[in-house]
């Protein structure tokens, strides 16, 4: 049997707007226990944030995204963390990951235009001390993100009534 915390995380991960009362029904726990567990997980930073998955392509917001592979020289005593911190503080940067393999940091960047994004790389990212190289790839189409499929419609193919 899964712990209550794990069950709550699964339910919220599927729909973070699930009301507390329904989570209590789904897990068989009391409302107080559910509220307490969520509160604890927020305090412990297990749950950091609640946000929708948005298909921006269906809005009129101008937006370009790129994934930038960054090679860096790790710093004495601080490894990659200090430099990662300098990178993730930029508002344009949506995600930063330390990677195994042929480069060190994967940086996901979002800007309004191609030009803005190019300027970010050339004027903000590349000049940083200890950044030794970057390779920028633009996102052309989003098929799936955070477990959600962005393309096509899923329809229920079942018969309306079956034995």
């Amino acid at each position, binding site marked *: 049997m899964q712990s209550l915390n794990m069950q709550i995380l699964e339910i919220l991960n599927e729909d973070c707007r699930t009301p507390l009362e329904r989570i209590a029904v789904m897990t068989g726990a009391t409302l107080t226990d559910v509220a307490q567990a969520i509160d604890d997980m927020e305090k412990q930073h297990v749950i950091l944030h609640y946000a929708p998955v948005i298909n921006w392509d269906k809005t009129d917001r101008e937006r370009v995204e790129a994934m930038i592979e960054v090679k860096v020289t790790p710093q004495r005593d601080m490894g990659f963390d200090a430099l990662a911190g300098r990178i993730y503080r930029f508002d344009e940067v949506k995600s930063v990951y330390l990677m195994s393999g042929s480069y060190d940091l994967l940086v996901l960047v979002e800007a309004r235009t191609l030009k803005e994004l190019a300027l970010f790389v050339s004027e903000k990212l590349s000049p940083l001390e200890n950044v030794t190289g970057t390779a920028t790839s633009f996102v052309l189409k989003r098929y799936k993100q955070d477990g959600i499929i962005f393309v096509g419609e899923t329809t229920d193919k079942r018969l309306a*009534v*079956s034995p």
Partner: protein
Amino acid sequence: MMSSFISPRVAQVPPSGIRRFFDIAGTMKDAISLGVGEPDFITPYHIRNAAIDSLLDGETQYTPNRGLLALRQEIARYLEGNFGVSYDPEQEILVTVGASEAIDLALRVCTRPDDEVILPDPGYVSYAPCVTFAGGVPVPVPTLAKDDFRMTAESIEAAVTAKTRALILPYPNNPTGAVMTMDELLKIAQVAEKHDLLVISDEIYMELTYSDGEKICFASLPGMKERTVTINGFSKAFAMTGWRLGYACGPRDFLYEMNKIHQYAIMCASRQAQVGALQALRRGRENGYEDVAAMRQSYDRRRRVMLDAFQKMGLPCFEPKGAFYCFPSIEKTGLTSEEFCTRLLREKKVVCVPGDAFGKSGEGHIRCCYATDLNRMLEAFERMDAFIHSL
């Protein structure tokens, strides 16, 4: 004048009561259906992929009548590992076109003219017609909400006559969601022994059991393997309904005869379905059946939500511990099951199945399936609640 070529034995059996609803519902836009009898998951991708690979590799031939040996071996390991009952893959397992075929074969093998077969009422719609087609007489035994819709040893024994040949024991149950306890099964085993009955144990919903300790394969009970045909399949546990793949396990001589009908009537189940099923069991054995566990978890949550909704609507509902149905009583509305479902569909566009489609004792109840998208289900509850208040 040409005579009717239809045998009275076939003509006397009415079509499934479920279908008439399908015809109305099919014409309706934005109806929400709680009337389905299958998972709302798509078969896990790795299983679909295995079947695709098999086609790409040119595996388009017949398989042995009894099914691919590798699949039968995996089935044997699965039953041994999960239920502690061992079957010989060579002679005691038959892969069939859905559990439905297995039920039909078992009944055709055991039934002599006018033999009686005991089955639960309410129960799955195919049992009684299959008994009739096999030349036997179905003997429905009412199961009651007060007994948690279990068949009891007493009620079975009361229905036994000199002509009783077999007992169909389908738990977890469609449509009630009832499961059996070890205590009750042991008592039923005694009755089966005493009256020398064949037990056809339909365990198709076994993986969808939500209570601990009630996931029991009847053949694993002392002395029962020799008189039990265990029926199971991939439709419910692995969300593979459209693949049509099930299996029967039982005594060697009985399976020999089942295989005979199967080989003449069917030849073998679809090879690609067998390959998919093999993948399902192999991967499951390696990862602790994580696909099944994830689906069961999801059903369990929705089960609780549906039960809670009926409580709030004021419809008494037995807590189902298996399958994916709730079977609430609608008696307090003063409507029959049929009237309730027809009006609910016409007035609020929600499809439920009237309980009497599953037998006389189902009257006064409706079957609602919680293998339904949560938000759609919640919308359906709002409509049902409004409907009940409008009465």
